[in-house]
């Protein structure tokens, strides 16, 4: 009797699993229909030789791009549409369009993005990754597609005009970030409040416990999107962080292709449109696309 129940339960479980499997099939069906639309764009895109990375991606029909899921406005899951959106995603779309394929986004956090490139999980990484000589030893980089800057955030109308005004003030940043050291060097008299997450910094500046938050302008812009009573301090930046796209080291053709896409992206106004959409409209600032090449950035990093 008992074994009969067991069988019934097993059957139910099997049915549930099959049901779940069907669900997956449906999803892929949806993807398939999108593929056909990708094929139509592929007709306009240049055909690349089969041996190159570009050719392989065209054969697959999708390019897998590792992006951040939690860094508005660069790469984040829009809670309303459940889609991944942001400045990094826009550039990813441009790369996919140039190949005539569909972009597939996967989450790449700071700890796993370089392994993702090395083991081929991702064809390309666009995840707010700063170009530096150590990383350039491991992976290939595009020319910088965005220059993030270390900036200061304060309440609108605050009296901070530059890093020197932080002396004697309570300033929040995240413990273990590079800004802890930067601030100790550039504003030794500031009273640092070191917390675990940027949301705690946002809380502290909102409730007035600190007068300033300092970190990447990208993250600070994310805070302004949350609360428009905050503003970026205009003064000179504390640090400069050029972001580059990452891919397998030594792939010369792919490097040239990506830099070509970036060149067009910057010159035909798409870069500017994306910047205004994700950053400019919140900060009220304007920025020109970066002009440096990868070599410029690496040379500068080694010089300092």
């Amino acid at each position, binding site marked *: 009797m008992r074994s009969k129940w067991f069988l019934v339960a097993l059957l139910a479980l099997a049915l549930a699993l099959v049901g779940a499997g069907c669900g997956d099939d449906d999803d892929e069906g949806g993807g398939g229909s999108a593929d056909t639309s990708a094929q139509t764009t592929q007709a306009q895109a240049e055909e690349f030789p089969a041996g190159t990375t570009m050719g392989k991606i065209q054969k697959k029909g999708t390019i897998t791009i590792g992006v951040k899921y939690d860094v508005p406005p660069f790469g984040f899951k829009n809670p309303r549409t459940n889609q991944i959106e942001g400045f990094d995603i826009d550039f990813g779309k441009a790369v996919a369009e140039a190949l005539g394929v569909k972009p597939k986004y996967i989450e790449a956090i700071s700890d796993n993005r370089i392994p993702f490139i090395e083991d081929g999980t991702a064809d390309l990484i666009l995840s707010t990754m700063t170009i530096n000589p150590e990383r350039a030893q491991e992976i290939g980089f595009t020319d910088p597609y965005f220059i993030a800057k270390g900036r200061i955030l304060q309440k609108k109308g605050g009296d901070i005009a530059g890093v020197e005004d932080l002396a004697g003030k309570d300033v929040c940043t995240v*413990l*273990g970030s590079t800004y802890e050291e930067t601030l100790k060097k550039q504003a030794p008299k500031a009273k640092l409040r070191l*917390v675990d997450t940027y949301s705690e910094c946002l809380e502290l500046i909102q409730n007035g416990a600190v007068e300033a938050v300092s970190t990447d302008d990208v993250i600070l812009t994310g805070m302004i999107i949350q609360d428009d009573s905050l503003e970026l301090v205009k003064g000179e930046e504390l640090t400069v962080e050029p972001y580059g796209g990452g891919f397998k080291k030594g792939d010369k053709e792919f490097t040239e292709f990506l830099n070509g896409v970036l060149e067009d992206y910057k010159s035909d106004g798409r870069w500017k449109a994306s910047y205004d959409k994700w950053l400019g409209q919140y900060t009220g600032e304007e920025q020109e696309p970066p002009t440096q090449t990868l070599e410029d950035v690496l040379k500068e990093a080694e010089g300092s």
Partner: protein
Amino acid sequence: MFELLSENLDDFTAGLWVTTRLVVASFVVALVLGTLAAALRVAPSKWLNRAGAVYVEVFRDTPLLVLLFISYPGLRRSGVEIGAWTAGIAALGVYTSAYVAEVLRSGVFAVAKGQGEAGLSLGFTQGDVLRRIVLPQAARTVIGPLGSITIAMIKNSAIVGASIVALPDLLKEARIVNSNTFQTEESFFWAAVGYLLLTVTVTVFFRGLETRYAVRR
């Protein structure tokens, strides 16, 4: 190992000093509020008893970290310009006072009922019975448990630094040293030594009290 300590001695001593001040101030708060709450709980009125019980249960049954995240931003947002120090001391003190109150209450109840009755029948007033007969005997039995609570409080003080209150206490300084040197075990080893210095001092102090007020049996 010792290199890490000597190179970062300023950070570690600054952190130890912050933790020491935090702990001493919180202990005073805990003792005062705990005694008041215990008084409510042993008072000869049902409503006062209940008020004391609510106080104890609210603060004993809430995680300290949660208490910190609610009270500090909550108070500031409602217009109370509370500083990080005040918030840290108040939260740790109030949280610990709930435990102190329970220990004092059980201490009072541990004194045999006959002692109080004997005092009353000999013509002592209710207040005198409490002051001269019950409390001195209760104090003796609570020394040990109070020591345990104090040690727990010293360790709980690390939560104040790790919370949004973010005081630069011993644990926080150890984490800063760790983030600069990447020597994880060593950084936290020296933090542990710092906490041990404080807890051993407290242990010795309470042992001394215990010996001094011990009943010869």
